[in-house]
């Protein structure tokens, strides 16, 4: 019964809808509003339940094209996960070490794992890019990016 992908997806969506509905019923009522803050969320929750059921019933076979989109090698999945980890690292360190250093590190690490090998070109592009962004944000836009451990 759950053999097709679309059916599995429909179950997940059903669960999301139920969870959303559960929290919609927790919304505190307001004394003044005639049409309160919970009307729309409740409606949306039920609508999503109906749609997930429809998706389950529809049970469309995937087209070849759609299947091809999902065929990833283990290597590629690993690579994408690694980049996600780099992004998390970037976010964690941004306010501690500062924009300039973290950005240059991130750019270099990501391009390396993607297989770019020309170190000199890479460093020239990345250092210029980072400095241009940093100073144009700070000077032109007046938004200061975290300087972190660097003195400027």
């Amino acid at each position, binding site marked *: 019964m759950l053999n097709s992908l679309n059916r599995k997806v429909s179950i997940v969506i059903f669960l999301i809808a139920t969870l959303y509905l559960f929290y919609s019923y927790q919304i505190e009522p307001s004394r003044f509003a005639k049409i309160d803050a919970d009307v729309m969320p409740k409606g949306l929750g039920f609508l999503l339940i109906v749609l997930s059921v429809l998706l389950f019933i*529809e049970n469309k076979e995937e087209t070849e094209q759609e299947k091809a989109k999902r065929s990833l090698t283990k290597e590629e999945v690993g690579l994408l996960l690694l980049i996600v980890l780099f992004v998390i690292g970037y976010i964690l360190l941004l306010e501690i070490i500062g924009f300039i250093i973290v950005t240059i590190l991130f750019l270099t690490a990501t391009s390396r794992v993607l297989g770019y090998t020309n170190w000199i070109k890479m460093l020239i592009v990345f250092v210029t890019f980072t400095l241009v962004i940093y100073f144009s944000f700070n000077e032109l836009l007046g938004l200061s990016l975290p300087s972190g451990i660097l003195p400027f």
Partner: protein
Amino acid sequence: MEVIDNILNGFAVALSWKNVFFVFIGVLAGTVIGMLPGLGPISAIAIMIPLSYGMEPASALILMAGVYYGAIFGGSTSSILLNAPGVSGTVATSFDGYPLAKQGKAGKALAIAAISSFGGGTISVFALMLVAPMMASFATQFGPTEYFALMFLGLSAISSLSEGSTIKALISAVIGLMVASVGRDLLTGTARFTFGSVNLLDGIDFLVIALGLFALAEVTNLVLTRNKVNTGNESEVGSLRITKQEAKEISGPIARHSVLGFIIGVLPGAGATISSFLSYIAEKRISKNPESFGKGNIKGLAAPEASNNAATSGAFVPLLTLGIPGSGTTAVLLGALLVAGVTPGPLLMQDEPNVFWGVIASMYLGNIFLLILNLPLIPLIAKILYIPKRLLISLVIVFCLIGVYGISFNTFDLYLLLGFGILGYVMRLLSFPAAPLILAFILGGMMETSFRQALIISKGDYLTFIQSPISAVLIAVSVLSLLLPLLKSKMKKS
């Protein structure tokens, strides 16, 4: 002669040296980003938004509009040279553009595309100038009931017109509305779905969604295709010359499809993609030798190019006069306007004529820039296609992260951004369209407000939505548009 005054005024705004510069930057950046296969106009606009922080509203809008039609323009270059459309609106361009390039006539194809785009862009801006004021004065009669119905129509149209399963598109739209409901309720101030977090009280910023769902998710495309070297030879672009005979031949399609494209662009849900396909099919149907289409027919190239550019101007009609975007791209554009402090709607023309007419005038200028950029500089610009993707990927990611950090200075939003990036990628894997989600997200707050206001006026009577004639028609059309795909699949079976 108030109209002429307004137009002249608009040109005065658009021709200030600062705004000329922004038009130029906008179309240039749009052309470059649109050219890169994988990154569409939504990403192009979202990536450029951080640059507009702190700008005057008119300048910001001029810049963003330039990015939008520049991206459509740029997409055609990669369609013709590489058979890899940079944006979905230029897929039809590749049908006859790429065969021409293969015959060694890439230069001619690019020139025809540029001229057709220029024609489509310019004719449609003229139409925009005529239609927008009428639409705005019509829209002043709209109350919350009509607005709700109009937004409902926008959402159902984009869902029924998107590729693949309509149910999946509707699920995307509902999830977009749900994401929009996070945060403090606009009318009562009650916290919803914030789970006690202060970070969620003000809701999720639209830039987080736009950059995550589109730019970040599209980067994964680049990651997976990074080893594919673009084959194509920029030295063999060939002559750009078009003969008189050819110019005569394409003038008909340009005129026809500028009008068709504009009309389709005005309609909610449809846009450059649908209009370019329709124009291509229509041109093929009226042609005396339809079998030459797909083999390098210049009419088959001119038609979709005129049409997709006309559709982008058409899309500005509902955006500027009603404040309601009809597509994912214009939804992001609306978000960009709100960031800049402009609230589009029927009153924009009266209250801020500088912004309204300035943008329209800037579009004439932008189309001229695009023609100049794209004709002689094509061989040079085409080199952008050969930038190593491995370098580009990390730069795009950093741009997204900094764009979001620049508005909130809060790392919480960066995690959200990453989360939406992953969601966007998963949606692509499972064939859920992302455009309905972003449109629903942008419309969510407005839709809920007008829905509740309408009900407060009607004292809780839900029939109000079908008692107002305008709203009744709009809702009937929405329901029809949702039933259409169902009927179509039934007809196919029997």
